[in-house]
């Protein structure tokens, strides 16, 4: 087998952490190769070196047998490497063709480009109208823009960074068909993910990274998902325990909630209806950008609505602000940790005060009880295993996973009656994620009503009692998790957003 790309003993260190240590990897043309690992395992650093964004400290790469050391992404693209990033870089106010042109070294005239976009999208089953504005596209469609931008460069190696985190199950199926078609034509694909079933379905080989080192290579189809997970995490995982419980009275009721989004190109909520009982966990799924942020804002009180639209313990609170809702027993943990859930330059003590002031009684007649705030912060650090030199450091000094533990812990430790969390385990390693899920279940067992908004379906199926999905700002009716199939979940999330036709043509 002739190799397209060979990586030998590649090493890259950042101050305080070795991101990659003597990593070896080889990819052949037409191979779909999985790069598997937890957050912080070094996957991103490795592909950034292949793509020329970062230069290795040691080791070398060969491309079609010749030495390969790209100094910038332009050189990598010229060699035939293309990359689809996890976070899209599209200008909302420009149309699809303009966005594609902006990412090209030498864009052809717009008319030719539109025609080429149309042709590529037809050939690969990725329907896309070149004249639509990027701001109006769904997450799946935005990803298609990025993929088509790559395909127009006719790449030999396509790197995909966590491509399915923004897709419905149906859309994932269609993406896989496209990727298989590309592989059949000889394009190598480096597929980064931590979703094991996907990798088993799609990839020919897998390289597993842990703490910057290659711990195993295998053929994913021949290994069970459980074994893959344990290779990735390096320890045996215990699924969260959930006590059987009888749901109590309704703690949070949302009736006909319709509000406009506070941000341009945001998703307005339309007629959202649900109720959560004490002791119950409602899981809300949905592809990113379908109203999750708006729903959290409307529940936390940052986005006011008509009084009767949100009812906490029987009291209409649609117009109440965050303080009044906290007094009523509702706590919320937004998705964006730095800047929304926490102030980056403030200390952990100050950040503990930020949302804990009311329920922990940290302010008396306007005066701040700093001793109490520090004790509360220390309690969170101890209770949720937050790795930090102390509570006096700035929030931005914490790693993403540690800050997430702090933010979720801060809300759960306030003895809440209603908990709303968006993406509770986003960017957190598997062991910490399990701890956070267990803590949420424990609060539910203690009688709290919980709403978990997440894009991680496995997570929702693991902890939720009932399941609903957001699609274009509308919420599907909630259904018991038990007996729910992946197919049904996908349809609740909006199916394939009009992509089915793509692969049915001649």
């Amino acid at each position, binding site marked *: 087998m002739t190799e397209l790309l060979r990586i030998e003993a590649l090493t890259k260190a950042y*101050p305080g952490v070795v991101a990659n240590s003597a990593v070896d990897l080889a990819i052949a043309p037409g191979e779909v190769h999985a790069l598997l690992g937890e957050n912080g395992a070094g996957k991103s650093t490795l592909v950034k070196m292949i793509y020329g964004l970062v*230069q290795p400290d040691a080791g070398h790469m060969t491309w079609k047998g010749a030495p390969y050391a790209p*100094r910038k992404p332009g050189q990598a693209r010229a060699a035939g490497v293309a990359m689809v990033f996890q976070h899209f870089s599209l200008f909302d106010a420009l149309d699809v063709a303009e966005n594609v042109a902006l990412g090209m070294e030498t864009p052809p005239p717009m008319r030719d480009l539109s025609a080429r976009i149309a042709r590529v999208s037809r050939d690969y089953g990725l329907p896309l109208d070149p004249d639509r504005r990027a701001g109006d596209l769904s997450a799946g469609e935005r990803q298609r823009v990025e993929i088509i931008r790559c395909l127009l460069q006719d790449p030999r190696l396509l790197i995909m960074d966590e491509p399915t985190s923004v897709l419905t199950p149906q859309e994932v199926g269609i993406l896989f068909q496209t990727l298989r078609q590309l592989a059949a034509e000889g394009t190598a694909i480096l597929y980064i993910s931590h979703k094991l079933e996907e990798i088993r379905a799609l990839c020919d080989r897998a390289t597993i990274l842990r703490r910057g080192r290659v711990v195993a290579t295998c053929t994913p189809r021949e290994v069970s998902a459980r074994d893959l997970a344990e290779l990735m995490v390096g320890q045996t995982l215990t699924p969260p325990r959930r006590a059987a419980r009888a749901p109590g009275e309704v703690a949070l009721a949302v009736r006909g909630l319709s509000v406009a989004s506070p941000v341009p190109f945001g998703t307005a909520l339309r007629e959202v209806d649900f109720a959560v009982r004490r002791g119950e966990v409602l899981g809300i799924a949905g592809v990113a950008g379908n109203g999750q942020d708006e729903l959290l804002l409307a529940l*936390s*009180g*940052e986005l006011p609505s008509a009084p009767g639209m949100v009812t906490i313990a029987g009291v209409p609170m649609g117009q109440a*602000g*965050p*303080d009044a809702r*906290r007094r009523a027993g509702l706590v*919320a943990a*937004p998705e*964006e940790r730095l*800047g*929304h*859930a*926490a*102030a*980056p*330059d*403030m200390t952990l003590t*100050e950040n503990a*005060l*930020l*949302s804990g*002031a*009311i329920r922990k009684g940290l*302010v008396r007649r*306007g*005066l*701040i009880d*700093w001793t109490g705030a520090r004790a509360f912060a220390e309690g969170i650090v101890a209770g949720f295993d937050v790795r930090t030199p102390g509570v006096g*450091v*700035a929030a*931005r*000094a914490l790693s993403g996973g540690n800050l997430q533990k702090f933010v979720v812990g801060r809300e759960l430790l306030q003895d809440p009656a209603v908990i709303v969390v968006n993406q509770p385990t986003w960017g957190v390693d598997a062991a910490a994620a399990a701890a956070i899920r267990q803590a949420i279940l424990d609060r539910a067992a203690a009688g709290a009503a919980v709403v978990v908004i997440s894009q991680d379906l496995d997570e929702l199926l693991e902890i939720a009692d009932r399941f609903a999905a957001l699609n274009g700002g509308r919420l599907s009716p909630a259904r018991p998790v038990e007996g729910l199939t992946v197919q049904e979940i996908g349809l609740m999330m909006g199916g394939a957003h009009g992509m089915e036709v793509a692969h049915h043509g001649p």
Partner: protein
Amino acid sequence: MIRLERRPTPSRAWAAATPVLAVVLTMLAGGLMFAALGKDPVAAIRTIFWDPLFNPQFAAYSRPQLLVKAGPLILIAVGLSLGFRAGVWNIGAEGQYIAGAICGAAVGLAFYPADLWLVFPLMVIAGAAGGILWAMIPALLRVRFGTSEILVSLLLVYVAQNMLAAMALGALRNPEGGGFPGSRNLSQYPAAANPELIAGTGLHWGVVAALVAVVGAQWLLGRHILGFQIRLAGQAPRAARFAGVRPDRLVVLCMGISGALAGLAGLFEVAGPAGQISIDFNAGYGFTAIIVAFLGRLNPLGILAAGLLMALTYIGGELAQFMLGLPAAAIQAFQGMLLFFLLALDLLSNWRVRLTVGRAA
């Protein structure tokens, strides 16, 4: 090659050291400039920083001037700093200063010549109210219609200046002044005067108010939930909303506080050092206070030091102009250097400079 790396946590040591370093660098760079102008740099620096306070010939006059000039600067800057910390940009303190002076003086003049102890306290209240009133125009326009408080507050300065001229020529003109513009001299009307409290120090009620404001702001920012909300809103507006801060309320509050303090500064000036409402009564304190606020890193104690330093360079600069014949522009450039070095070195508290050998790329 030099690289900047963000510090995980801001360095306290550097935050404390940079002002001193900036003054030293200003002296060096300013000395070079003075030398290039053909003046003795050592003498020039001494004239600016030393002579106003310790030269036996000038100190008797200029030492009290230090507090007279620093008082209003500090009082206004403390108010502005609260707004600046919350992301509320009141650029029009000069206008609020004038409005406070007009309102306060008007109350005082209305009682003339009654000898009541109540007159001065009433003037103080009127001065603060005048400043608040003037500041509420940009505040409410922003809250209600989303206008920029930067533009509105700035433009209202020019309105205030014209109102001042109209008052000096019209309603508040001294009826016994022989038709000259300008009001009665309040400093010669004991019930309304803001006198020097201890002879030879320059200390008047405005300076006392400035010190009270420094202590009050320090307490507010450190111990009170409102101070916490102000800091939070400036650093992370979305986190502030999550924490339950109402942005509109904060805008009105911050504009109100800074307007009140600027108005007070105007009242104390018109009843004391200036003595009367006149066409050119305002001396630019409201604008200079913006510089003082940033020079003091928006920190009350820093503003106290910065206000004194700024006043010193003004007094020393004037002294250097007529003693050494330095052009006024050179003094302004010198003050500019001070600001430049302070802000440039501020980088060091949040960033670390790394020297890397060879090519990094």
